[in-house]
């Protein structure tokens, strides 16, 4: 085999490897995309019925409940328009607080309960994850639109 053929063979093999790598990356990338929904969107049925997604908003005041086994907790997440019930097993992060922002990742069960396998309460110095802030802003925008529409009817 001539050196040139060898070189060509290697280049082809290299390109083939790159293509395979690109395909694998895209595949893995797609299957690991997690989408974010506000409680209002979940209520409207926009969230996936199966599979993981993220929700966010404020932890409703007085909604945090510990189940009898001491490890499961339930709390409500609200975007001030709608709320949804979330259940989580494990230790909540330090920054988790009633009335503060939260983001949870998990899936809906058949009863409409959100089973979280991860609760994120990371935040900036104003105690608000960007996603949660966006959820509140969306709900607020919807409300003002609503009320101005009503005023228009009057």
């Amino acid at each position, binding site marked *: 085999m001539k050196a040139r053929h060898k070189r060509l063979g290697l280049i082809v093999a290299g390109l083939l490897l790159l293509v395979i790598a690109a395909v694998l990356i895209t595949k893995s990338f797609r299957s*690991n995309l997690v*989408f974010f929904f506000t409680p209002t969107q979940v209520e409207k049925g926009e969230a996936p019925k199966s599979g993981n997604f993220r929700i966010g908003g404020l932890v409703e005041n007085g909604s945090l409940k510990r189940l009898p086994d*001491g*490890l499961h907790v339930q709390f409500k997440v609200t975007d001030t328009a709608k709320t949804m019930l979330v259940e989580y097993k494990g230790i909540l992060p330090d920054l988790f607080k009633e009335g503060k922002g939260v983001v949870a990742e998990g899936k809906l069960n058949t009863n409409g309960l959100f089973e979280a396998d991860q609760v994120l309460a*990371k935040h900036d*110095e*104003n105690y608000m994850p960007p996603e949660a802030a966006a959820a509140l802003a969306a709900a607020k925008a919807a409300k003002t639109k609503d009320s101005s529409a009503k005023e228009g009817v009057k």
Partner: protein
Amino acid sequence: MIPEIGQLSLILAFCFAILQGTLPLIGVWKNNAMLSNLAVPAARTQFVFIAITFICLDYSFFANDFSVLYVASNSNSHLPLAYRLAALWGGHEGSMILWVSILSVWTMAVTLFAKSLPETFRIRLIAVMGMVSMGFLAFIIFTSNPFERLIPAVLDGRDLNPLLQDPGMVFHPPVLYMGYVGFSVAFAFAIAALLDGRLDITWARWTRPWTTVAWVFLTLGIAFGSKWAYYELGWGGWWFWDAVENASFMPWLVGTALIHSLAVTEKRDAFKVWTVLLSICAFSLSLLGTFLVRSGVLTSVHAFATDPRRGIFILMYLVVVIGGALLLFALRAPKVGLGERFDVVSRESMLLTNNVVLVAATGSVLLGTMYPLLMDALGAGKISVGPPYFDTVFVAIMAPGLFLMGLGPLAKWKKASLPEIGSRLRVAAVISFVSSLLVPIVMGKLTLMTAVGVFMGIWVASTTLILLRNRIKTRRVATPNLIENLKGIPLAFYGMLLAHLGIGVFILGVTLVKGYESEQDLRMEKNDVAKAGGLAFKFEGTQEIAGPNYVSTQGTFTVTSKGKVVAVLQPEKRFYPVQGSVMTEAAIQPGVVKDMYVSLGEPLENGAWSVRIYIKPFVQWIWAGAILMALGGVLALLDRRYRIVNKKAALAAQDLQEAYEV
């Protein structure tokens, strides 16, 4: 008064940065010595004013001057002194001050230690760094002034985020920034070379030590951060593929590629265009990292409050710096030539593959980090990319590169023979294969992932040792005495061995902790005993203790193995009244073979607590690996050929001859 002095010297520093960044370039262009000679004094004066700024701000923290808004928002009179001083970089404005301070330290170092460079090159280098500094100072002055007064002053500050009240806060940000910002030197070298049209072996020799220093700092900075997350966040993770972590990891990957391609440029005069491009990319990614962390678009422990003006300013700055650099690259790069040819199988081709692998890995991390931000910016919904994406893709891309790590250093420059390398590495292959089966069996469970991981780790480590043996053998004819023989091997070679060994140790740590860690969330009452990893954890109850600015509930756990006490762990739940926040302080008994890790969850009824118990096998190896890598970098820096700074060309040429042998 002090804050106003700081403010004033900040503005003066900005003026001198403008001087440093513009006039000397014009001077070099127009051949005007008066203008070009301004570079060094302007840079040094800028350094002095930035130092004054830094000291004034830190003094305000020291003196608890709560009439300064930034101090009031990030400190408190009860905060211990060390944290009060470190609180300077606890928020957005101060971390920008830290950024420019470190940039001016680097610039100062260039004016002091880069004396052997040709005059015009040195002036251009300093001017480019002045330009970088100019942008950042403008950013601070116009959007993020740390000296803004708070009128009326408050009695006490809002305190530093309790998450940051940790020794890690004192070291992690400055060390990380030394690395981040250090790539600005490599960047300036590349730009100066493009302006100069001078890109050759000597250029690579000058750049190399600077790049290595930055890389060492970045390696340590990332390792510190990871260690800090491990014990402070209380969930025992050490890497989360969090966007901010990725932001520091991408420059590291490209910086690692750069170190290797610089080696080729220095020794073979090849890869020149590529090396320049990598220098530009490494610093661009550092800037992008700063943008990601500081613009407030991220949900992260590192995120700060958003001010859209800041985001837009940084974005514009990024476009100017990166776009300008790439434009210059496009215009000038073809001039620098291609360098020496090499065979398909050679040290060059292996290093090229190393570079391709590292850059591809960076690309995959960049995709996962930026895609959600891009979608969000385009209004296409909020998404996030799960850590499994990074785990699979990153490992899959790196694996072939790690395998080649064993072959590369044994390959000869220009043309190597695969069968010859193969015969040298037969032993390593056997050892790696046997341990890939044996280690998992000893640990109690054999899976494909752990087998592959152990194989890779042992492969990298054992091929590195074979490399040393090979080197000793080839030198034995000339120097039969083993000690003399070992002494004669250049430090740079030992540096490479150590860094590669570090990679092996790191891989083993990651594989074993991923494969064999155990985690339990339990409800424990006083005197309850939990079993984990062959150990018994007995909960002895809790007591209240008071810290300087917090109160704490401290639990006591006695860990016994076969009836013998092996550790007493005292995790805490701290309450910081100023911010009204609770902090978990995990208790960890580190060990070579495993870490025992206990953290308190929440108090339940009857004095019971929810408790989390982890056994983390070989987790310390992760950071030990990183430290070995950094030490390798330090050894490479101590190599003789970099210590000769001021001696002239004759010595350099002789040195270069030796370098070829490495």
